[in-house]
């Protein structure tokens, strides 16, 4: 009986493939010889199989949808929190913002939906020499690459009034602050502008290939070229 107890103690691991070859052989040999243990083993094995047969619990029909909605709501909540962090970022990064004085600024006209980038400027890094002879071709302003699908479409519902926005772009291509230059400045418009800018992806301004802070003036629902 003692030997059987020992054998049966190993049944669980035997069942789960956790034993080494020698141990497995021992048990297997014993099972061939001992009817009681063989019956015990068989019951254990079929108990496990009975469980495996159960399969998944049928899920409620709307479960998948509910989960997706919950995650979307959470995503929206975290975006709003991100926007609240802007004022802090603005105070910390505005700093000295050197613009190349000489020849105006590199201008780019980009039409994306109804967004037009009117003007872009770049900030010369403090380490570089300020030189009036620096050819503008060596420097580029931030380039709007795309507006990723965030909330809302590319258009801003401003009625007939276009909105012109000055967006400050850091050296990683992220908008870190903005100013509405013209157009409505009510809360709804600001909120839509913020949403759009949150998901704007820029290629940062470059000064001799080095990413620098820059500025882009964007016009929504209107076409203008300046520069």
């Amino acid at each position: 009986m003692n030997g059987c107890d020992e054998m049966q103690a190993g049944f669980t691991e035997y069942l789960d493939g956790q034993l080494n070859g020698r141990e497995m052989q021992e048990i297997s040999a014993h099972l061939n010889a001992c009817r009681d243990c063989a019956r015990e083993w068989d019951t254990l094995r079929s108990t496990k199989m009975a469980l495996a047969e159960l399969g998944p619990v049928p899920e409620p029909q709307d479960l998948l949808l509910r989960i997706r909605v919950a995650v979307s709501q959470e995503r929206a909540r975290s975006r709003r929190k991100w926007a609240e962090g802007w004022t802090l970022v603005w105070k910390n990064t505005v700093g000295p913002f050197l613009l190349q004085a000489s020849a105006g600024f590199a201008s780019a006209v980009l039409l994306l939906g109804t967004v037009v980038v009117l003007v872009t400027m770049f900030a010369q890094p403090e380490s570089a020499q300020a030189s009036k002879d620096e050819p503008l071709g060596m420097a580029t302003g931030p380039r709007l690459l795309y507006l990723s699908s965030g909330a809302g479409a590319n258009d801003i519902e401003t009625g007939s009034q276009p909105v012109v926005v000055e967006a400050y772009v850091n050296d990683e291509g992220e908008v870190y602050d903005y100013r509405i230059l013209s157009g409505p400045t009510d809360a709804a418009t600001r909120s839509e502008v913020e949403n759009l800018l949150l998901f704007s992806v820029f290629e940062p301004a470059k000064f001799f290939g080095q990413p620098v802070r820059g500025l882009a003036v964007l016009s929504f629902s209107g076409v203008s070229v300046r520069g």
Partner: protein
Amino acid sequence: MGNIASALALRSEEAAPIAELRSGSEEAFAWLIERYHQPIYSLLARTLQDRSEAADLTQEVFVKVFRGIGGFHGESSLRTWIYRIALREASNQRRWWMRHKQQEVPIEQEIAAGHAGNRVVLGDTLVDPGESPFEMAAHAETKARVEWALNQVPEPYRTTLILRDIEGFVYEEVAEMQGVNLGTVKSRLVRGRAMLKALLTAPAAEARSLALAG
């Protein structure tokens, strides 16, 4: 041997989705939800008393996964991490239940909503001592009986049985998910299987008293 191979396979399969999830990709999250919502719901439905609670909790698990993915650095597999969150939520829920809803849950309470008129009690079915539990389980109506028996197995044994025998995770992963060592997993399996077997093979009256005692 097989364990290491499958663990490696899981890691490489998860590498790209993890990167995309951390960058907030909506498609990656849709994939995650699609892939794990059913097994997580299944686990929660069996470990909690209430199916609608399980649905709510499943939702909560994915919200927590979304919130926490930024802090996930691959210390475990993605799958283990998700299950850990689910198990933690379930255990919090059970603790809340015990604190606030002290009333007894009667043994005959139906767990499966679909079996309302179909109360399967062990003594009612013809128990042929020569027929193994597996043969009995092969019959569709006895699935309800196995489900009932599983529900009578107390925690943490029940969850251990679910993770090992229904989900098929290896000992190491079960240990990681439950936050215990391998020895504990093994002993929980031994005891859980013994309880389940006793519930399935004993005649009705004995089964009821076993369940009450457990």
